């Protein structure tokens, strides 16, 4: 690192530290003032001229509007960005069962890079911790997960030409559904033992591969055919074959929502992946799952990487965390702009109202009440702008989006279709963020208003 860079680093860190201390002090003071405000509303302390501040906001409405708008834009964007990240978090949290153990090949962090073809692992079927169903069969799901590159039907020139589809090949779909606690929507069925059926309308006897789709991917594939979603009986092309939908999974809110399930032998052969990538075992309870995961990781031969299923999906939050930090960083920088804007407005308001402040002081209002009065004005601005911003941000709740989740430590990650989620925590956070901006932006001008001398201001 060159000397110049080192000096710059020291300056940046030093300057950043000073700013952090200043902001902390201002926040402390702001919190104190907010407490005083509360006491005033409760009647413990003498009240400040609130009506005066409110009237001022209305009289100078263009400036009020512009400043509040800045808060609105910043807060609405923050809410939208957090809704995106929250949607991804909720997706990974809703995927997986605490009683399931997910087994991948040794060293693999994600299913896309796992291959269990290195030795005989069929002994897993006899693993004692596995729960059995009514017929005495172990609740174990043998799966191969792969990502297929699909040219988009009727793609617009210059637009998106291909997409990646997540295909899960299964031995026994009904059993897999039980292990993952996923049922089919009424009217659908699991694919048959053969996994194929005659293609409707085909005169050549062509066989279509039966598939079960997640709700999200059914919507995405439906757009190719101008439908809101593919339904049972619909056919779509993938990898030079026709695939017919026989069921839609009740998978909303989980990563399975973005998957296509089909017969393992067919997809394994078609895509050159004859071995399994994943085995999921159902155990009796959370403790049993944890013990089984540990035991399999330590003692099973050939070596495998086993973990509780929920822990696996939690690890896929690596990219979400990075998105969250990026969203907060962008919002913070934008907020700083908003803070400087409100500071400007409040300084101008104070310089224009020097005489008003003088009159208020002569009427008997103490310095701290003047401070409170102007501080409250900026908080009001922030509250109005922030509330509108929260409302605007709330509108994206339930919107569909696509992204990638991954552990962020090698491996491929998986593309998912998910819904943006705006919850009360995000709305409260947005409002608090707005008040924080108003707090920091309003405090310095309010302090300067407090220092106005009554006689000098009226001269």
């Amino acid at each position, binding site marked *: 690192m060159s000397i110049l860079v080192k000096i*710059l680093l020291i300056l*940046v860190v030093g300057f950043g530290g000073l700013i952090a201390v200043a902001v902390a002090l201002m926040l402390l003071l702001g919190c104190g003032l907010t407490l005083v405000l509360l006491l005033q509303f409760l009647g413990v302390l003498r009240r400040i001229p609130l009506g005066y501040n409110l009237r001022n906001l209305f009289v100078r409405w*263009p*400036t009020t509007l*512009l*400043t509040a*708008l*800045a808060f609105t*834009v*910043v807060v*609405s*964007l923050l809410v*939208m*960005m957090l809704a*995106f990240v929250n949607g991804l978090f909720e997706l990974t949290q809703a995927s997986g069962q605490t009683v399931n153990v997910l087994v991948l090949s*040794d*060293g*693999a*962090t994600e299913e*896309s*890079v796992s*291959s269990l*073809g290195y030795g005989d692992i069929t002994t897993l079927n006899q693993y004692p911790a596995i729960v059995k169903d009514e017929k005495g069969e172990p609740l174990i799901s043998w799966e191969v997960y792969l*990502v*297929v*590159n699909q040219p988009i039907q009727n793609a617009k020139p210059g637009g*998106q*030409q*291909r*997409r*990646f589809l997540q295909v899960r090949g299964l031995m026994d779909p009904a059993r897999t559904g039980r292990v993952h606690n996923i049922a089919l929507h009424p009217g659908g069925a699991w694919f048959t033992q053969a996994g194929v059926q005659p293609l409707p309308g085909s005169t050549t006897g062509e066989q279509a591969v039966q598939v079960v789709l997640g709700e999200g991917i059914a919507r995405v594939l439906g757009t190719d055919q101008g439908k809101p979603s593919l339904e049972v009986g619909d056919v779509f092309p993938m*990898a030079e074959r026709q695939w017919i939908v026989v069921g839609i999974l009740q998978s909303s809110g989980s990563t399975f929502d973005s998957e296509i399930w089909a017969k393992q032998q067919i997809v394994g052969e078609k*895509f*050159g992946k004859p071995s399994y990538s994943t085995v999921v075992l159902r155990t009796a309870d959370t403790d049993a799952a944890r013990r089984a995961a540990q035991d399999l990781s330590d003692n099973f031969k050939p070596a495998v990487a086993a973990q509780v299923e929920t822990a696996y999906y939690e690890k896929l939050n690596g*990219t979400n965390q*990075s*998105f969250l930090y*990026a969203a907060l960083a*962008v919002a913070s*920088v*934008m907020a*700083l*702009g908003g803070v*400087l*804007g409100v*500071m*400007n*407005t409040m*300084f*101008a308001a104070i*310089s224009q109202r020097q005489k008003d402040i003088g009159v208020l002081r002569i009427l008997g209002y103490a310095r701290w009440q003047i401070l409170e009065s102007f501080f409250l004005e900026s908080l009001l601005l922030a509250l109005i702008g922030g509330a509108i911003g929260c409302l605007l941000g709330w509108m994206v709740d339930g919107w569909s*989006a*696509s*992204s*990638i989740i991954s552990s*962020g*430590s*090698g491996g*491929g990650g998986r*593309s998912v279709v998910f819904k943006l989620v705006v919850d009360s925590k995000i709305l409260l956070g947005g409002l608090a963020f707005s008040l924080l901006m108003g707090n920091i932006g309003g405090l310095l001008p309010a302090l300067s208003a407090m220092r106005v001398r009554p006689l000098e201001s009226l001269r």
Partner: protein
Amino acid sequence: MPHYLDDWLMAFLDSPWNVIGVALFLFGVVLAYVWAPYLRLIFKSLRRNPLRTMLMSAATMKLVLSIISIWSVLWLLDLVTTERTKDFKAIVTERWQIPSQMPLSYERILQDGAAVKPGDVKPQNIMSWQFYGATLDAKKSRENLIFFFCVDPAKVLPMMEDFRDISDQERADLEDAIRAVQEDKRRIILGRDCLRRINKQVGERISLFSINYLGIDLDDCEIYATLPEGRLTLFGLMHRDRLNNALDAYERKNGKPHPLARKSLNLVWLQIPDTVTYGQLADQIGSSSSFTDPAVKMETASSGIAAFLDAYRDMLWGMRWLLVPAILAVLSLVMATAISISVRERRTEMAVLKVLGFGPTPIMLMVLAEAVLIGTVSGFVSACGTWLVINKVMGGLRFPIAFFPPFRVPLDALWWGPMIGGLTALVGSIVPAWSARSVRVAQVFAKLA
């Protein structure tokens, strides 16, 4: 004029943007000379309330910083997904599946472009890629993970654009490292961030425990050198023979090939002179009977990257069409608020100016010029600061998109900054400037009276 100065001048004038820039600068100088009295007034106005000027400037700098950061990400993504028409690369991968896994034997056929008959074309050069992921410990902890590209070292410099713009010293070092890897296949070259992450030094020897080629662990790898800063900073380069020899040894030892032995070729780059050759090669490869298990596809590098980025399309759309406009809107609002307050405070001054003979338009232009001046200067300062801090201090923006390393702020940001600052200030100050233009002298003096 000295010869080198003459060359430099001719090179400078080669770019139409340089000529336009110089013309604009000269035009600005002429305007400044003609409008010197106005400029004095503008500077006086800005000095009158230094606190407000400072706040406006600080807000502009912060917001320009965010936009430049976001644009730096989008700019690079746009750049790598823009199709070229000459001297570009095509990528051959497995047709239907990712990650692509092809037999190594495909490489030989692709070298000839799957040519079978006279008139068939061949690529100018090819480079094959094999991916090897490994950790430094047998427990395979994530913190020690290194992702290697196993390549033919001789192809690194001719084929990889990443190393085209490095300094002479870096090039000499890299050439030396490549020679050393060719001489001793146990040598590896690591990216600087990768080396930092695993906390090792050049010269140390490490053992690698594979996570994708189970059973193919590589002992005694010497970290010979580091790669120049750039896209590969998180990765490592290894001689392809090291991996392929280990796969052969596995077969000899176990009496059967490694499960991934027929899937060890991940992708192949083909260097292609033009789009006509590309089309012909795509036909040859697409129709070749040599590529059936698995089938392959050929696409341009930009198209391949665009397909990978598709998973992020909603987020990128949001960054481009929500985030950036919103930041611009906040910046305009901050400017509009500050300038409108300033105009309201100076209504008397504007009335006096009108009495002194200043027309409505010059007054409006003065207000606009104040805003644009603050915006442009603050934008430029912010752009320089952003470039310096992100590139030199932070080592790039770490944004988790696909396989991209930390994003660096391009030099173009030095004109983005003043442009963003100046234009948003102009937009934000139009209404206040119009109100300054419409100040009525009689009304203002009647109020004063």
